[in-house]
């Protein structure tokens, strides 16, 4: 019996060492394997997506637009949050990633950036992105993070703007993706710019927007960080609060690209998508994906055909 305990103790020590060594090298650049993971190695372009349906939809749009121009594409969808995938793009493991310019800027590139408008944000990105990366043209389509409240909360406290929340935030629970808590375009900015301190933060995976919606509907939480293209906002009469202090900057759908992995044909194909894509398109597509349970690939194909981009 004692031997088993001793064995377990040795085990803990070894496992601790293993876990620790498994996690070393997470800082980008320090790891030689990162360079080798280039998707270009197999001659194809790797299109990624984050872990929420709209990102997958946009990933499909990009992938199919590239394929229509004869570019060979591999898809790596549902990868995780920006914090996780950004390094993968930087090292070339992913060639093309659907991004939101403002969030990209303040999460991964320049946390202190004050840029607000689309032009400011893109100028800041062009100046600050690492040499291996570039953003292509931004589309008009925007999908912002938001502070959204349910109708009863809005009515009870007469809420129109995030600023109206100041006296009551202490009584409210806000839900959002885990990263919302530590992001400038999240609780950090809400506190510094509006002085908001919520009673509680209920974290969720970015995947769990539908769960957030349910909780908001049932008033288990009173406010949530919902994406503004979420079709359930209108369906449930939720109120997206105005943001006069611009905690949430411009969020145009913009391709983030690993420069050396994409040729001119590919760049042209993605810029053609950005030239056509509008917020209304995005909302309509999201309604089909989330509401009607259609496949992202089908919805993307229909849109490309309608926009005259699908070969």
């Amino acid at each position, binding site marked *: 019996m004692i031997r088993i305990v001793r064995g377990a103790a040795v085990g803990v020590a070894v496992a601790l060492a293993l876990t620790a060594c498994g996690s*070393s090298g997470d800082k980008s650049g320090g790891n030689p394997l990162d360079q080798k993971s280039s998707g270009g190695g197999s001659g194809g372009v790797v299109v990624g997506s984050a872990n929420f349906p709209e990102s997958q939809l946009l990933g499909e749009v990009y992938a199919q637009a590239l394929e229509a121009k004869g570019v060979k594409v591999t898809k790596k969808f549902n990868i995780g949050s920006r914090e996780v995938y950004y390094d993968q793009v930087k090292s070339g493991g992913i060639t093309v990633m659907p991004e939101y310019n403002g969030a990209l800027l303040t999460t991964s590139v320049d946390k202190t950036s004050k840029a607000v408008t689309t032009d400011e944000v893109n100028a800041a990105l062009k100046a600050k992105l690492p040499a291996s990366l570039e953003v292509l043209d931004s589309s008009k389509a925007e999908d912002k993070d938001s502070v959204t409240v349910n109708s009863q909360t809005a009515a009870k406290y007469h809420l129109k703007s995030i600023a109206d929340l100041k006296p009551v935030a202490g009584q409210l629970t806000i839900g959002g993706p885990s990263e919302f808590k530590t992001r400038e375009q999240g609780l950090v900015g809400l506190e510094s710019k509006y002085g908001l301190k919520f009673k509680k933060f209920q*974290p969720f995976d970015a995947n769990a927007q539908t769960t957030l919606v349910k909780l908001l509907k049932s008033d288990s939480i009173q406010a949530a960080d919902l994406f503004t293209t979420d079709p359930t906002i209108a369906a449930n009469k939720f109120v997206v609060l105005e943001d006069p202090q611009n905690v949430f900057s411009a969020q145009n759908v913009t391709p983030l690209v690993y420069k050396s992995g994409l040729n001119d044909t590919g760049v042209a194909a993605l810029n053609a998508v950005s030239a056509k894509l509008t917020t209304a398109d995005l909302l309509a597509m999201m309604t089909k994906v989330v509401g009607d349970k259609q496949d992202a690939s089908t919805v993307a194909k229909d849109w490309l055909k309608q926009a005259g981009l699908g070969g």
Partner: protein
Amino acid sequence: MNLADQIRAAWTWLTTSAHWSGGDGIPHRLLEHLQYSALALVIAALIALPLGAIVGHTGRGGFVVVTIANFARAIPTLGLLLIIVTVMSIGLTPVLIALTALAMPPILVNTYEGIRGVDPDIKDAARGMGMTGPGILLKAEVPVAMPLVLLGLRTAAIQVVATATIAAEVGIGGLGRYIIDGLARKDYPSVVGGSVLVLLLAVAVQVAFVGIRRAVVSRGLRNQA
């Protein structure tokens, strides 16, 4: 970041006093984690122990029980959890159902195998001493089967403790928060720190079962199984 830095980062995370207080603090998360795990384990035991014992004792329905238990072992806990959450909404109940489903098969199968495997001579001896069905089960079969039963409980407990981390995926607390939130925020010290805590908990469960085994298994049986 080399190995030593990594260990230091996780150690710093674990020893930062801010991580030890409040709703997101380690004691609170640990308590939540223990609460879900213990509750699920108790519910699973309350169902699986009597069921396994009766089936093993009577010898009837053994094949059905083992087949169902093997079937249940194959259910992906995360999938089950997400189905229940999607249908019912969020809360502790879906997490408990999923973890209970995870814990039941090893308890059930081990109890059944343990009781069934008791030497017929022992049962005969008990009968010869004037015991009847329930008496034989409780006083002869259960004590003899105890090592296997405990092994089943231990397997279940370790699986539940390690798997309870996924509760965080559906917005519930527990130590999984550090891992899931850490992934989303790319906060590796939080991931490593959270994993170390879960790991220590799993080890503590193993050690606890060593103690329980000492206390519960009669000395004559200890060298077996």
